[in-house]
């Protein structure tokens, strides 16, 4: 059962061959047996999962089942889950049991899905390797058979590793600068970062509010579409959510791709990309040509400024968002504070890890008196230039295709000495968040036995088209079905 997709598991449940309680127990047993190798979960919610499974079986017996009723999945530990600890990968929230559900959590409960637990992640979603988690690094299932401990990418590294290792068929993720797409690429799974405002951020612990977006991580585009049907939609509790009709993302998966116009941004096929990776990406594009697509080169002249703009905007917003962790109302508080200032400064020094502290300090600096115009305002202007590049590109083409990451999964510890080295990991993903457009990562080959992702970038609200393009590719390739040994 663990090899089946969400769509397949749903059919098994529908046929009555297995109950959700049986299925959930099988997944829980496997998860407890196998996850020691990966550390992909922070919390396994055994009792709640079985209770949800039991309720799902009752709903099915009453003839009120949805596609998701009784199907197991997991949440990234950034989505608040009522009564289940939600840590965001941080010591600061090690004891935090939310008294409410995120909207995304609520949505999955409403369709009867069974949450097996909370997946590991970089602390407060800040990282590209899952090495900044207070709960320890996650190990990529790929490479393990050769005795190599490689990173799964980040920040949604636990979700990606768990899906790749067949511990869950699907998991939620969040993407602020590449945190769904890069781990999906490094673990050989399918991930989608939706348009900014498509999925509610309510109850999703905030990192950089103008960039953060939740999205699906699964093995197939079809499963990602099934997740989007649950996750997308207007939410009055998120003031930046967009009130716009949600299509059935599965309805257009089988549209033919004949005539699809693909643009290849020349800046994303640069010297940063290894030749072996480039070959895999270009092979994938050739598959699309066989499916009837046409290809032309396009240019994103300001893309080179994306990392610089991001490392002003994201830390600035993070410094404001993370000011709420003050030791007064919930979460960690230092021992025996001697006065209020001592309580704040020691709580935050002890509760946050090094990468989080660095970003808060950079952000506070960029927003401080005398620097605001030079950094934050300048970065917001560059952000518009980056957005304009994409708007211009989409006048000529339907989608853009590129690599997701410059190289495949690297060995743990390889990029931790200098933060900037790690930041460059997101060179092909970060501009998409700044523009607010959607993009996917789709398994597209291997280099030295490690997965390579193809990035498919679309115009605002074109998620259905991206999923359609990914699904059609998955009908003629089997990269997404390869299983780590």
């Amino acid at each position, binding site marked *: 059962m663990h090899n089946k997709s969400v769509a397949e598991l749903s059919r098994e449940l529908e046929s009555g061959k297995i109950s959700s309680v049986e299925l959930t127990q099988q997944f829980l047993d496997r998860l407890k047996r196998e996850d020691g190798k990966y550390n992909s979960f922070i919390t396994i919610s055994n009792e709640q999962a079985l209770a949800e499974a039991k309720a799902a079986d009752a709903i099915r017996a009453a003839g009120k089942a949805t596609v998701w009723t009784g199907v197991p999945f997991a949440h990234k530990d950034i989505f608040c889950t009522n009564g289940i600890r939600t840590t965001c990968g941080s010591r600061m929230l090690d004891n935090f049991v939310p008294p409410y559900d995120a909207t995304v959590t609520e949505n999955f409960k409403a369709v009867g899905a069974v949450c097996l637990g909370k997946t590991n992640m970089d602390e407060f979603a800040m990282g590209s390797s899952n090495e900044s988690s207070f709960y320890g690094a996650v190990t990529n299932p790929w490479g393990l058979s050769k005795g190599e401990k490689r990173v799964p990418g980040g920040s949604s590294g636990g979700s990606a590793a768990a899906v790749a290792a067949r511990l869950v068929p699907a998991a939620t993720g969040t993407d602020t600068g590449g945190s769904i797409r890069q781990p999906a690429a490094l673990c050989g799974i399918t991930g989608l970062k939706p348009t900014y405002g498509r999925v509610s951020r309510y109850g999703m612990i905030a990192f950089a509010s103008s960039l953060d977006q939740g999205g699906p991580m699964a093995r197939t585009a079809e499963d990602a579409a099934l997740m989007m049907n649950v996750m997308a939609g207007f939410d009055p509790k998120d003031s930046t959510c*967009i009130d716009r009709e949600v299509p059935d993302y599965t309805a257009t998966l089988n549209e033919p791709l004949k005539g699809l116009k693909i643009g290849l941004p020349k800046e994303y096929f640069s010297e940063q990309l290894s030749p072996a990776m480039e070959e895999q990406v270009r092979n994938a594009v050739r598959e699309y040509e066989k499916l009837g697509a046409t290809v032309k080169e396009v240019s994103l002249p300001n893309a080179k400024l994306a990392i610089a703009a991001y490392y002003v905007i994201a830390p600035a917003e993070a410094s404001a968002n993370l*000011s709420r962790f003050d030791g007064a109302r919930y979460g960690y508080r230092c021992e025996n504070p001697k006065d209020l200032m001592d309580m704040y*400064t020691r709580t935050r020094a002890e509760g946050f890890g090094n990468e989080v502290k660095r970003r808060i*300090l950079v952000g506070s600096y960029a927003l401080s008196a005398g620097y605001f115009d*030079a950094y934050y305002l300048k970065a*917001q202007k560059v952000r518009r230039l980056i957005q304009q590049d994409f708007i211009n590109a989409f006048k000529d083409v339907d989608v853009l295709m590129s690599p997701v990451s410059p190289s495949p999964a690297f060995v743990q510890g390889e990029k931790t000495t200098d933060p900037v080295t790690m*930041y460059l990991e997101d060179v092909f993903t970060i501009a998409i968040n700044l523009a607010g457009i959607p993009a996917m990562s789709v398994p597209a080959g291997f280099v030295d036995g490690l997965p390579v992702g193809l990035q498919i970038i679309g115009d605002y609200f074109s998620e259905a088209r991206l999923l359609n393009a990914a699904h059609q590719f998955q009908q003629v390739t089997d990269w997404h079905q390869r299983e780590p040994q």
Partner: protein
Amino acid sequence: MSISREDIEKVAVLARIKVDDEQVSALEKDLGNILDLVDQLSAADTDNVEPMAHPLNATQRLRPDVVTETNQREAFQAIAPATEDGLYLVPKVIE
């Protein structure tokens, strides 16, 4: 672009994060590297470019001015580090 020890100490106070001397040295290097990266922005021509806050230029919605939340003080305070009589306890602020 470099950042001085004094700047780091000042920003750490603003951010309410305690840093010791050894950490300031490490931060001097790390933050210096990050600011070098960010410095690429200064070369960009942004004359007559409007700063961008929301990708779709959406503005804040208003909702009717009615009570929508119920009182959940007990649930919220159950997870607080220290409370008494429905109040959050912090170190003494006023002598």
